[in-house]
């Protein structure tokens, strides 16, 4: 150690291996509901007496108590602060949830979205006063079309699944405009789970296409399913097994040959952005989850946003509203009566889409630039392959690598150990990691789906890999007495131990009832 004359170190000590969790787990406090904390008569503020007045509420005035808990201000502050500390998110931990892309939300995006010129707008303001915001929407639309090579785009959908609905509605409108009736939609087993739900929600019949032993679409099975009643195919690429659908161009040709359209689920666009343009693969429409590819907050952190890009064939049917640039001015096309509306199938939601997400996404695109976005895809794929390569000797991978943005393992390595995928996930919690996605995709038994994203450093990945290797080896080494099996005991260091998920699902208790509380609280909870 180097030190000065006072014995103080002049360089930081070499970093030691750190656990992913904080050291204070012993102080994770049990937190009752705020209604269970009140002490009758305690108050946080003194209000002046109500001046004399004549109530005009008549019989509408409340007769009973409203059932608010009696609390002092520090109790309230601590209650909500402690609740907020129970929130595990990408800001506090590595969050390798497969298929969800939990990546860092750059603070530059947040700064841009909070600029008063954007943050204080109201969607009903005259458009003459919102030209900057409309210009931003137009510019984001431009970049989404450029990155995908597509002819049209809508920013309206409020989330990925809403985007799917939008794309399939455009396909339905296009088929109707051709004077045809096509009712069947093909959905590979390796597609996202929302795909068949979307097709069904639009009144299509869903026809599943099996996967090959390689985890990709079975082309022969696809050919056998084609017919004059096929409206299109919904395909996720890269798919939910983290694999690129190599035959995608052949699939596009087949579906177009049969008169159908090609919907690509672009949820995993983060794996190919800057490297592959969906238009070049024959895609007719695709949604882009702004949170997955363009780093907007996700999962309680912010609303979703699922813009959809369209091919020339489908662009005229895109929903309203959209921004059109006329000279220097931006005009909002909001009505079907507007000539510029084309054959639009109509509106998806009130107003113009999730403006705050548009600002963040454009901020991400512009701050990365073309080279930076390409590196996003490169690093996302590199990180997933690093995990696959470092774990496949102790775990078992169902498909030969390399993978795209997520690494998939099955539970064959746990055969005869008595340990399950769920047990490993619970052990991970004790070791300070949010578990990966498990038992999904369904085509892989006991699946572990790990998506590290481009955000994570080599050190973070190495820490996670070390933990996973330990757990895999510990499981295989045998755990002796089943009653003392640590895998079955986990998690140990959480406020609640292993929850009884079966009873929770079979006999759910959906409403809180105080055990013994004044009547007014019971009636307030009704």
């Amino acid at each position: 150690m180097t030190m000065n004359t006072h014995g103080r170190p002049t360089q930081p000590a070499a970093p030691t291996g750190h656990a992913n969790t904080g050291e204070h787990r012993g102080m994770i406090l049990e937190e009752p509901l705020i209604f269970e904390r009140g002490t009758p008569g305690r108050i946080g503020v003194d209000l002046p007496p109500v001046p004399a007045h004549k109530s005009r509420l008549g019989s509408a005035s409340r007769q009973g108590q409203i059932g608010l808990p009696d609390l002092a201000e520090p109790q309230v502050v601590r209650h909500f602060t402690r609740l907020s500390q129970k929130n595990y998110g990408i800001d506090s931990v590595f969050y390798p949830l497969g298929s969800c892309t939990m990546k860092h939300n750059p603070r530059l995006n947040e700064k841009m979205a909070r600029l008063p010129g954007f943050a204080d707008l109201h969607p009903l303001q005259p458009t003459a006063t919102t030209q900057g915001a409309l210009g931003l929407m137009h510019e984001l639309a431009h970049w989404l079309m450029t990155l995908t090579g597509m002819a049209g785009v809508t920013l309206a959908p409020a989330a990925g699944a809403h985007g799917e609905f939008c794309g399939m509605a455009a396909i339905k409108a296009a088929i109707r405009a051709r004077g045809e009736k096509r009712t069947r939609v093909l959905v590979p087993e390796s597609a996202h789970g929302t795909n068949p739900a979307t097709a069904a929600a639009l009144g299509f019949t869903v026809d599943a296409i099996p996967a090959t032993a390689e985890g990709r679409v079975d082309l022969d099975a696809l050919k056998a399913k084609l017919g004059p009643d096929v409206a299109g195919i919904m395909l996720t690429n890269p798919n939910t097994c983290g694999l690129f659908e190599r035959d995608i161009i052949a699939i596009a040709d087949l579906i177009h040959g049969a008169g159908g359209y090609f919907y690509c689920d672009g949820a995993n666009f983060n794996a190919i952005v800057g490297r592959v343009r969906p238009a070049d693969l024959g895609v007719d429409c695709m949604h882009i989850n702004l949170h997955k590819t363009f780093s907007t907050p996700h999962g309680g952190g912010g609303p979703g946003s699922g813009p959809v890009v369209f091919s020339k064939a489908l662009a005229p049917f895109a929903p309203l509203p959209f921004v059109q640039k006329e000279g220097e001015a931006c005009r909002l096309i909001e009505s079907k009566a507007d000539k510029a509306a084309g054959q639009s199938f109509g509106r998806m939601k009130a107003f113009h889409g999730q403006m705050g997400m548009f600002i963040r996404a454009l901020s991400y695109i512009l701050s990365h630039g073309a080279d930076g976005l390409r590196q996003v895809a490169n690093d996302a794929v590199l990180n997933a392959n690093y995990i696959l390569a470092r774990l496949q000797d102790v775990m078992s991978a169902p498909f030969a690598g390399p993978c795209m943005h997520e690494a998939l393992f099955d539970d064959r390595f746990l055969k005869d150990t008595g340990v399950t995928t769920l047990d490993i996930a619970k052990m991970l919690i004790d070791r300070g990691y949010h578990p990966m996605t498990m038992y999904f995709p369904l085509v892989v038994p006991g699946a572990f789906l790990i998506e590290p994203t481009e955000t994570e450093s080599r050190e973070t990945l190495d820490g996670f890999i070390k933990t996973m290797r330990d757990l895999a080896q510990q499981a295989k080494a045998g755990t002796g007495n089943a009653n003392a099996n640590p895998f079955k005991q986990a998690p140990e260091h959480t406020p609640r131990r292993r929850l009884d998920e079966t009873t929770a699902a079979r006999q759910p208790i959906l409403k809180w009832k105080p055990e013994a509380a004044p009547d007014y609280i019971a009636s307030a909870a009704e």
Partner: protein
Amino acid sequence: MSRLYFTKDHEWLRVDGDVAVCGISDHAQHALGDIVYVELPEAGAKYAQGDQAAVVESAKAASEVYAPAGGEIVEVNGTLVNDPSLVNNAAMTDGWFFKLKLSDAGELGSLMDEAAYDAYVKSL
């Protein structure tokens, strides 16, 4: 004299005359884990072989149960609605899903007998 058949999708079918009792196999309930919810068809509904007739949900996943042969539903096992654990505890007996009046006994030819099904499960 009843005869037992299985499908590749892990449904079983016990045929007695032109009525068949259907459920999911013991292998299927084991693979699904604790079953928490069963959605049954309505009596009188008609299905072709392979149509989705019921839904079974476990803590892990929701799965479709297909009609192992075509026919009309004549009775459903209502006790499963309140006690889905019957499927885990007695998949092949009390945990039956529905009874079908078969429309074409010839369809049974495409199904497996118990020995063939056991071999099929081992091959998975």
